[in-house]
């Protein structure tokens, strides 16, 4: 099976989709000749021409607005927003237009399209190249929001997104584009093995990134994106301290897999939710509330969050801002010891 990193997996999905369906077009800033600042669209313009792989003017609301107008006519656009930190000029088009088109038109104008955008910190990008805006978009009825944590899911989720009848926002954790951790690449990781042809990862289905071993106090750790790998390390640290972690990789943030979450929470009674984004009104608040509503009788400890701080994303002190394995471990330890 081919080995791919996330960029290659995204590129492979786009190549396959454009070859299979002439309605698929790609548009965004620098996506054509240059192949995108992260090279996700490399070679597409060469293969499919400048009319289908479109270098747009530098205007995010124009990229999304144009894509919406294409989608309602029957084209299948895949728009790239270069960094999610720059998505806000298009927020109106996404929230008020894209998300509501099917509903406001009584089902007459569905708007199936994809927005891909890199998210998250860990690349020394300061607060305009590092933010995690998922909560803002998960609050919008009508959108599907996904975030892969590995090359296999990146390709499978993107192919599902392009085939979807609904608008899908694909948040790509840029820190792990080329490897699950600094200094390592995907070739040594099982999820770096990516099937060559078309396959789909379904929406609304979480993955178990680490199963319970049956040794020690069981704890459920719920996360997504690059934090899956941070949390995996934390689970390793915890294992040495007698804590047995089931690690859930949500993959889909809207809709999310409540069933998988509850199944695990009822099994362990101890739950930690982790993400890079700020804590207050962050995505984790939804998961904590859902666990509390659905699994209260099974809980043995308060449900804890490990998150970025409620500050703008910093530059020099990035490592103090981002949750690291030690911080996640502390939370696992606290819920495991809670009596």
């Amino acid at each position, binding site marked *: 099976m081919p080995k791919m990193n996330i960029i290659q997996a995204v590129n492979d999905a786009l190549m396959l989709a454009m070859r299979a369906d002439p309605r698929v077009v790609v548009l965004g800033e620098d996506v054509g000749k240059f192949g995108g600042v992260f090279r996700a669209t490399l070679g597409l313009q060469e293969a499919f021409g400048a009319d289908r792989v479109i270098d747009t003017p530098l205007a995010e*609301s124009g990229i999304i607005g*144009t894509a*919406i*107008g*294409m989608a309602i*006519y029957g084209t299948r656009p895949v728009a790239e927003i270069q960094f999610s930190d720059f998505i806000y000029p298009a927020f109106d088009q996404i929230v008020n237009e894209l998300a509501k088109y099917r509903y406001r*038109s009584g089902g007459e*104008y569905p708007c199936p399209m994809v927005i891909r955008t890199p998210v998250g910190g860990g690349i020394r990008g300061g607060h305009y190249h590092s933010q995690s805006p998922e909560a803002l978009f998960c609050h919008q009825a009508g959108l599907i929001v996904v975030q892969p944590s590995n090359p296999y899911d990146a390709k499978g989720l993107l192919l599902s997104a392009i085939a979807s009848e609904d608008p899908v926002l694909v948040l790509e954790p840029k820190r792990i584009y080329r490897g699950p951790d600094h200094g390592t690449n995907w070739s040594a990781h099982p999820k770096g093995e990516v099937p060559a042809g078309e396959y789909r990862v379904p929406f609304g289905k979480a993955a178990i990134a680490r199963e319970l071993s049956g040794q020690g106090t069981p704890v459920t750790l719920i996360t997504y994106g690059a934090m899956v790998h941070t949390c995996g390390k934390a689970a390793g640290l915890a294992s040495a301290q007698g804590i047995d972690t089931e690690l859930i990789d949500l993959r889909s943030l809207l809709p999310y897999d409540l069933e998988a979450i509850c199944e695990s929470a009822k099994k362990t009674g101890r739950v930690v939710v982790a993400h890079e984004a700020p804590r207050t009104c962050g995505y984790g608040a939804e998961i904590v509330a859902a666990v509390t509503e659905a699994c209260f009788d099974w809980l043995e400890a308060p449900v804890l969050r490990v998150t970025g701080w409620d500050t703008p994303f910093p530059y020099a002190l990035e490592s103090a801002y981002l949750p690291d394995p030690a911080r996640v471990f502390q939370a696992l330890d606290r819920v495991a010891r809670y009596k």
Partner: protein
Amino acid sequence: MTFPTLIADASASAPFPRFTADDTAAMLGTFRVLAPDGAPIAPDATLENGTGVADEDALSMLRSMIRQRAIDERMLGLQRQGRIGFYGAATGQEAATIAPAQALELRDWIHPALREGGMALHRGYPLWTYLSQCLGNKDDTSTKGRQMPCHYGSRQHNFVTLSSVMATQMPQAVGTAYAMALAHDAPDRPLCFGAIGDGATSEGDFHVAMTSAGVMRPKGLGLPLILYCQNNQWAISTPVEKQTAAPTLAVKALGYGLVGVRVDGNDALAVLRVVRAAAASVRAGGVPVFIEAVTYRVGAHSTSDDPSRYRDEAVTLQWQQRDPIVRLSTYLQQRGVLEDGEAQRMAVQYDEEVRGVLAQVEGLPPPPLASLFEDVYAELPPHLARQLAEVRALQP
């Protein structure tokens, strides 16, 4: 302050536009066919009827314009009685609304703004649906009762469902035109018509759309795109002079490499001819056209507005003297194709039609409860299924 040239030179016309991106005369002047008294300004013997418009086209527009006014008057009355929550009338703007619909083909897509509902009606969008939309009842197929009045839409009529947000439809119109250009070849291709008001030309999305409209050239041709601004000179209480310091709105096209044309929006024949020529040009692959149709909002912005608080109604009176329906019907009477009193009889007949349909749709129930959760997604996801069960359990 108003646009003084329109008052002073109402019987003069700029030359017919050339539809080239350097035709500044077409951007700064105003093209007219009829003077406010209905007389052709400069009859041209080489054109049909001297005006370039067949009588049947003029009559077709007149009927829809009179019908639009009858609907608007009835709906304003309904709002004042509290029977609908909101209404945005096109009173005084009927020519600017109906003439483009006459000029376009049904395969052309319309991305409307607030006052283009008459374009849908002219295309055959049923009055039953139009009134049901305003009432939010079960027969509102435009929005299934999900939007406030005047948010019409119909896939059958290629009339994209309006949102209340300003100018967002402009980049979308660019995208629809792009999709059309990919799917069809010039010169026989459908076009996209994006409508906007003068106030929304201050929005970022207007600028973004004008930029993209000029730059995007699939298959090496201009987009099949007309961007159309009804300049009714008022955005609620804010006059157009506070939206722009440019001498006209049409001249903005120059800065984006588009064709700009300014036309008297109260002259149905002039609007028809300009939109027709623009359509032929962009279908063939010419540069996209931005049209400013100068008109005047003789009524309030909406039923929640009182213009006497912020503007000189003496000016409004002047504009009422330039009524587009009077202008067109006088012209047709002078041509001998409209009898004396016929326009008045039409108005009565259309009012009866509106009242008749209204009597039938006003008692219709609201959409079913389950429709609250339909169309959020193509299929009902688990969390919405749970919420639907919750709201059902709350019903008596």
